[in-house]
């Protein structure tokens, strides 16, 4: 009598490393900060904020006060409410572009690493050639020629520019997982490709994917700031963190607050994203080199 036990339910096995680096309170502080920014961006209309476009010429370049929490800019607009509204652009560009990048890069990378063979060879060499093309120059070039500019176009261009990078990360991660015993076991049991890809591989590359996604969002948000300086982001008077910092250059000597607050908002947001991403990566024990 054979004693081979085959489990009735093919429960997918998510591999858990034995020793995990603790996440720590700072991690949750960062998560809270990101959540707060999200809430602010979503409910900016409902919150008791001043109109970010209203120009109050009786209070120009006023420092922080109770009435204007962060002061006003050179045409009397409330800096605090502009920062809250500005977070919408940054969050939309950051997460929107990464949604496109991961939406295309993840299935391609997983399929290539799982199938191998000719599909993998062609796909990978194609992506590596695209990677050689400097993404930032490509983004700027396309955005400067593809007029008129809009938030959606910016998201699309950055999203597509990020595909090769996402592809490489996901493919490498999938390659590392797909030789594991439980994948082989699933194949032996006759699981369908679809099941292996979605139930076995995807949960196991998800931690790497998520931490890379967060760091990617941070990079894209910084890129939006860069584009704002070049006049290639959303057009003023729509506030974005990049736009605000850019506008502050001319009044830097008179009103440094105009530069300091949006810069602080941007840096804290990026720092939180990077920190969460980095902690998650350590937590799931993925070496930096592999990314």
């Amino acid at each position: 009598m054979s004693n081979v036990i085959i489990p009735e339910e093919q429960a997918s096995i998510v591999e858990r490393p034995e020793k995990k680096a603790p996440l720590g309170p700072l991690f949750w502080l960062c998560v809270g900060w990101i959540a707060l920014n999200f809430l602010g961006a979503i409910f900016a209309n409902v919150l008791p904020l001043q109109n970010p476009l209203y120009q109050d010429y009786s209070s120009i370049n006023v420092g922080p006060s109770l009435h204007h929490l962060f002061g006003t800019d050179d045409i009397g607009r409330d800096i605090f409410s502009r920062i809250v509204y500005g977070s919408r652009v940054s969050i939309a560009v950051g997460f929107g572009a990464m949604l496109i990048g991961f939406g295309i890069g993840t299935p391609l990378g997983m399929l290539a690493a799982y199938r191998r063979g000719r599909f993998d060879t062609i796909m990978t060499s194609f992506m590596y050639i695209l990677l050689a093309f400097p993404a930032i120059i490509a983004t700027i070039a396309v955005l400067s020629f593809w007029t008129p500019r809009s938030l959606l176009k910016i998201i699309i261009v950055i999203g597509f520019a990020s595909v090769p990078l996402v592809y490489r990360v996901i493919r490498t991660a999938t390659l590392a997982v797909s030789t594991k015993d439980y994948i082989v076991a699933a194949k032996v049991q006759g699981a369908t490709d679809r099941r292996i890809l979605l139930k076995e591989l995807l949960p196991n590359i998800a931690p790497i994917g998520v931490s890379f996604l967060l760091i990617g969002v941070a990079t894209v948000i910084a890129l939006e700031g860069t584009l704002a300086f070049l006049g290639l982001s959303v057009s003023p008077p729509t506030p974005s963190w990049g736009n605000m910092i850019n506008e502050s250059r001319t009044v830097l000597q008179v009103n440094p607050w105009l530069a300091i607050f949006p810069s602080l908002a941007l840096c804290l947001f990026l720092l939180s994203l990077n920190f969460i991403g980095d902690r998650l990566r350590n937590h799931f024990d993925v070496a930096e080199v592999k990314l």
Partner: protein
Amino acid sequence: MIRYVIRRILMLIGIVFIISVGSFYLIHLLPGNITTIIEGPGASPANQAKLYKLLGLDRPIYEQYFVWLGNVLHGNLGTSFISQESVASTIRAALPIDLEMIFISQILAFATAIPMAMRSARKPDGIVDRIFGAGSFTLLSVPPFIVIILLVLFISIKLGIPHTGVSTYVSFSSDWIANLESMALPSITLAIGSFVVYFRVLRSDLIATLQEEFITMARSKGISQRRIMWRHAFRPSSVALLGAAGVNIGGLLAGGFVVQFLLAIPGLGYTLIAAINQNDYLLVQGIVFVVSVGVVLINFIFDFIINIVDPRISRE
């Protein structure tokens, strides 16, 4: 080794080909009649005909590409219809400024990152390592445009050091000391970004290398800490550092423009942005092409250097 180099050169040619197709096609993203958009509605028929001939617009698109490519290979990237100057000579005037900026910033970045990474790797998770780690992590989250604004605010405005502010660029040939002063802020800004990358890469690689058996062997022979670090650990770890440097320097060539733009330093990046704002499309196209090829060339050169440092790579 030779086979490896030949394969890399073939790949390089392939990539440059694709870049040229991409740069060429940019012009066709413009909506409407290309000559009107590039030269403006008031362009004379003679100028329109000239552009028509340069771009070969009367022919099918693949032929247009080869006409353009033929011109590019002869060093003719067209003539700007805004400044009436040849695109190639504009680029030739701006490029040395970028190279100088990158050169200074890399010296600064390596000179700080290498000793600090070695110090950190000696005692991972020690106090020094943690301070360096937290500092580099914070710097990672400060984009260059914020760094440059802070530097201008404190060094140029508060301290009032000459030639460091906006629009104070002095060319190297006219006064080299003033030139170095005006290059200080942009170079420092780029150096900070590079430092973070190099420090993090070298630190983690050194920690891994220091656990290898040949290091234990060297230690048991009584070789000094300093010699182990520089002679035994640094060479294998420098492969990772060079890899990061190749990507990073390419990124600086393509990404140094914000710094140039903010300080009005007339390098390639500044010229590119000015060209975008003036709708000088031929100049944009030329710079995109030259910078992209430059980035690919830099990566190629670094691959080559890495091979010399670690010959095992080409044998794989």
